Structures are given as C-alpha cells and as structure tokens.
C-alpha cells in the first residue's frame, strides 16, 4: 500500500520536477520564462507523435527534448536578441504552444500511445519498497533525479555554474568581466526548453500514454511556482515537487476513504500547503536574498 502510494507520488512529481529544474537554471541565469506550459505541451505532442509513428518511445522522448529546446529558442531570440519583455513573451509562448500542439495533434486523438518501458536495475529492483520505487522506474524518472543532482553540482561546484549564477545576479558586472551574458542565457533557456519538453513527454509517454489537447492542464504553472518555492535551489525543487505530489495524491486517498470533507477543500490543499511552507521557510530574509537571482527578468543589452 505504502509502496503503491509512493509510486503514484513519484509519478505525479516527475514532470513537475523536470520542468521546474529546467526553469530553475533559466531563472538562475536571470531570465524569467513563463512559457513552461507551452513548451511542455509541445513536448507532450511531439513525444507522443514520434513514438506512435516510429513505435519507439525512446525516440519520442528524444524528439520531445529537441522540440522543447527549439520552441524555447523562439523565446530566447525574442527576449535575448530583441530584448522584448520576458513576462509577456513567455505568456505568448504558452498561447502559441497550446494552439500549435492542438494543430499538430489533431490526428492523434483517440489513439493509444506507446508506453515508455520500466528499466529494472538487476537485483536492486527486488528490494522491498525501494526496489520498485527507486530501481524499477521509467527512464524519465531516472533522468529527473539525475538532473536535479547534476544541476545542484553544476551550479554550486563548477566554474561554469558560478559564471551562470553571476550572469543572473548582475549581468552588467558579468559583462564587464568579459562573460558572454547573452550566449550563456541562450544556453540556459535551451536547457529549460529541453527539460520542459521531456516533462511533457513524461505525461504522454508514461503518465497517461495518449494525446489529448491541453493535457498538461496547468502543470507548467505549478512547475514555475515550485522554482520560487525552492528559492532557486535544486534540492528544494525536488522536495517541493514531491511535497506537492504527495498532497495531491493524499487528498485523493482521503476522498476514497470517504472522510466527508468537501472535495474542493481537499483539492485546494496542495496550493495552500505550498504557500504555508514557503511562508515558513522564507522568513529568513537574508538567506532568501542570497539565492534570488537579482537580475531576474531584467532586460540586458551590452553597452558598446
């Protein structure tokens, strides 16, 4: 029972974690991309379509990564090269993604998809609880956990990570030091797009292998909120995604037990819980300040 519930929680948390970890890198570089939902849905439709046509879900996931990145390139060109407003451009990207994915996916509706297989780690997958939970999951789960750790390491233990953070904290001084601000931001945005694309593919290849319009149903927005929730720290994103997943799944179980609390209140719990936890952990003003990318959302044009 516990194992089964934890599995469901990890299923619900994985797409949130992936999209959020990508957006975290983007925001650490000082760019606010509100188009996560749009990139996710593009990943979902591409992943589904390619897997359906080739019969190979791994190709589907790969295609989703590529399309997610390409789609984010549009955002990068507008906000970084043409210095458009990031908030508005991100929202427009979401609008475009929802429309475009619907156009692409019109013929996929009503067709069962191809499920990404589970990868069993020999022997370890036999262990009680953790075996099934940690060593017998689909590829995207492993990627999400690996990426979280890798991003944490990259940001705080590598020189490149330091450079990326310095770009996000103060692009003018980074520029003065000879750092290629725009190039780094391009790469960060592309990484974010790739992650969001893969997160979308998780929905259409693992979670529920099918394609329907708007199937991301607002998860891109939750991912955005999780980055803030985590005060831009990767391991906290992991914690946040699993907390959110746990409360969402927990409320369904509470309902199935028939405890008689209005279901709307139960459905609201994940959102309320997120706010409450954030209030508790962000009271330390100094610590939060240190982690907030100071240039977040601010336009940058190098002086010449």
């Amino acid at each position, binding site marked *: 029972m516990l194992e089964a519930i934890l599995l469901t929680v990890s299923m619900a948390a994985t797409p949130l974690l992936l999209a959020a970890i990508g957006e975290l890198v983007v925001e650490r570089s000082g760019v606010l991309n509100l188009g996560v939902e749009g990139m996710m849905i593009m990943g979902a439709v591409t992943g589904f379509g390619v897997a359906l046509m080739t019969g190979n879900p791994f190709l589907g996931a790969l295609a989703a990564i590529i399309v997610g990145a390409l789609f984010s390139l549009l955002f990068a060109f507008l906000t970084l090269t043409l210095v458009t407003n990031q908030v508005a451009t991100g929202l427009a990207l979401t609008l475009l993604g929802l429309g475009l994915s619907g156009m692409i996916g019109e013929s996929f509706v*009503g067709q069962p998809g191809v499920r990404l297989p589970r990868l069993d780690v020999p022997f370890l997958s036999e262990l009680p609880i953790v075996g099934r939970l940690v060593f017998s999951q689909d590829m995207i789960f492993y990627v999400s956990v690996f990426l979280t750790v890798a991003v944490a390491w990259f940001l705080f233990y590598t020189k490149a990570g330091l450079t990326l953070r310095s770009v996000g904290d103060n692009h003018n001084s980074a520029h003065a030091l000879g750092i290629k601000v725009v190039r780094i931001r391009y790469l960060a945005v592309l990484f974010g797009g790739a992650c969001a694309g893969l997160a979308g593919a998780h929905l259409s290849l693992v979670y*529920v292998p099918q394609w329907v*319009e*708007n*199937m991301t*149903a607002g998860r891109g927005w939750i991912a955005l909120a999780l980055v803030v929730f985590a005060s831009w720290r990767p391991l906290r994103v992991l914690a946040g995604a699993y907390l959110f997943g746990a409360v969402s799944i927990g409320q369904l179980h509470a*309902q199935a037990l*028939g405890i008689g609390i209005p279901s709307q209140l139960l459905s609201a719990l994940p959102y309320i819980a997120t706010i409450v936890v954030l209030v508790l952990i962000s009271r330390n003003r100094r610590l939060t300040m240190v982690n907030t990318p100071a240039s977040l959302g601010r336009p940058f044009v190098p002086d010449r």
Partner: protein
Amino acid sequence: MKNTLIALAASVAVLIPAVASAQDDPTKACFIYVGPIGDFGWSYQHHQGLLEAEEHFGDKLETAYLESVPEGADAERAIERFARSGCDIIFTTSFGYMDPTNKIAARFPDVKFEHATGYKREHPNVATYNSKFHEGRYVQGVIAARMSEAGVAGYIASFPIPEVVMGINAFMLGAQSVNPDFQVKVVWANTWFDPAREADAATALIDQGADIITQHTDSTGPMQVAADRGIKAFGQASDMIEFGKETQLTSIIDDWGPYYIERIQAVMDGTWEQHDVWEGMAEGHVVMAPYTNMPDDVKAEAEEIEARIKSGEFDPFTGPIKKQDGSDWLAEGEVAEEGVLLGMNFYVEGVDDQLPQ
C-alpha cells in the same frame, strides 16, 4: 405577450420552410462545444453527431461549429454570432449555455435553439435534450458486482451535479441487485478533463482495494491505469476499447447522431416543435459498447437487463429504495419521478461518500 410570441413563432415556422424550399438553400445547423473536439469525451461525441448528420444529409446541410467556448459572456456572443450568420438551428451543448441560449432565443424567434442538459425553455423556439446515461450505469453496476472479487468498485466522479449523482446511484443499485454488500468508493476529481489527475484518482482507488474502475470524467486516463494494473474498467462517453483491449468491460457511448438528424430533418420539414427530451437506450441515444472481457453468463445477464430497460419493462430506479441515511425513498414497485431524478442530490443506501449540501 406570451401569445404574441407564440403567434409570431408559429407564423415564422410557416414562413421558413416556404422560403427555404423556394430557394432550395441548404439548411444550416450550428454547434457550440464547451471543450475541444479533441477531448475524446463529451465535446468529441457531440462533434461525431455533427459528422453523422453531415453524412446523412450531404449537400442539403451546411454546418458550422465553435469549440472551446467558455461558459459566460463568451457563450452569449458565440450564440448570437451563429444566430446572425444564418443558422437555422443551433445546438448549445453544455449546461452552462442555458441562460445565454434563452436570452438570444428571445431576440431571434425564427432560429431554433436546442440546449443540451438544461431545463429552461423560456421561448417557443428553445428545446432541451439529454440522455438517460444512468440506464447504462445500472447495467455496469450489475457487471461490476459479478466481476469484482473484492466487492469494491472505484468511481471517479467529476462534479456533484444531479447527472453524476444519479449515475453513482444507478451504478450502486445495479451492483446491489447482485451483491447487497457491494461497496462503491467515490473520488471527486473536480475536473471533467485532466487525464493525469483522473489517472491518479484511479490509482488511489485501486490502492484502496477497488478492483473495478468506472468513471464519470471524460479522459481515457483511468482506463490506461486499470490496464496497467491488470484489473477491469468501464469506459465513458466513447468506446475506449483501444485503450484497454483486455480491460474494458463495456462503455456507455453518447450517440447524439440520431437525435441531431431527427431535429435537423424536422427543421427542413417545418415540423420542428419545442420539446424536452430525455431518452436513453430505447431510442439509441445511449449505446453500450460490446460486452468484452467477461464470462458468457455475465454477458448474457447484462444483455438481458439491457433488453429489459430498452423495452421499458424495467426502470433502474424502481422501489424499494432507501436513501443513504436509511429513510425510505421509493416503495415497492414505485418508479422515481423524472423531476426528482433530474435534480437528484442524495445518495441511495450503501454509497460510501458524502455529498456537499
């Protein structure tokens, strides 16, 4: 006032076919959907109805539709645009379009309006229609009780409206007719359409011991979970067999095509009249997908009950039935009034859930 309106409507009703036949214009039927036609559920099925009508009438029919029209100010505008763009009959296919439909109908007396699932017919040119989906749910309940080893079914519900509550009750009554101790666990997903959340709800129900899943939400998410977990499930709105070849027992299919053809034909013939239609299996508006993945005797039993409902011999809501709190609702042999059913906000005895009051 009312008389003038009716007189006006009558005179118009006489005029229209005359004009139409004189010019031999195609009749124009217009549809408004609340969701995308790609939802593979409610709006998808209405759109299938449109396509059936197109095929049936060929050149004599022109159609138009708007999808994903939000309930509220946008709906009123969309309906008015249709009314102005020469539609002869407009189908508004969501409950939330009820007031806008009636408002616009007042201003366009020569256009026919058909509103699905509502109860307001304030003008002679507004008709309402709905289907008795609960008939199918009763049959499902019987199958569930026969097929379940645990004696527990999981029910994924959307929103606590009478339609859904009625479905849960019919399912329960069907199951109880086989196994009086049968349990139904209900989870309200608070959405009509979120494949992932519906899948989560199905998983939660299975983890709590349900070994049959049924749903009153629109996506195929729960069916896929059931397939993955190796248990049986019922489809919803459309035939979902492709998503669970070894899983789906049957599915309640909303087939709007025959109704749309009948009503469009009535407009063409000039015989269209206001009515309130609530029809089910007998008229072919509720169709059961083939009974699959079950032993022959269960299949035979299901087919027999379906036949008895179709012939009118049996109504799922026939007494004795008690309410959830144990009080009497229907006496032996008494059949529920339609009005009570259409506003149903109480459970029958045995449902393990509480309705918001």
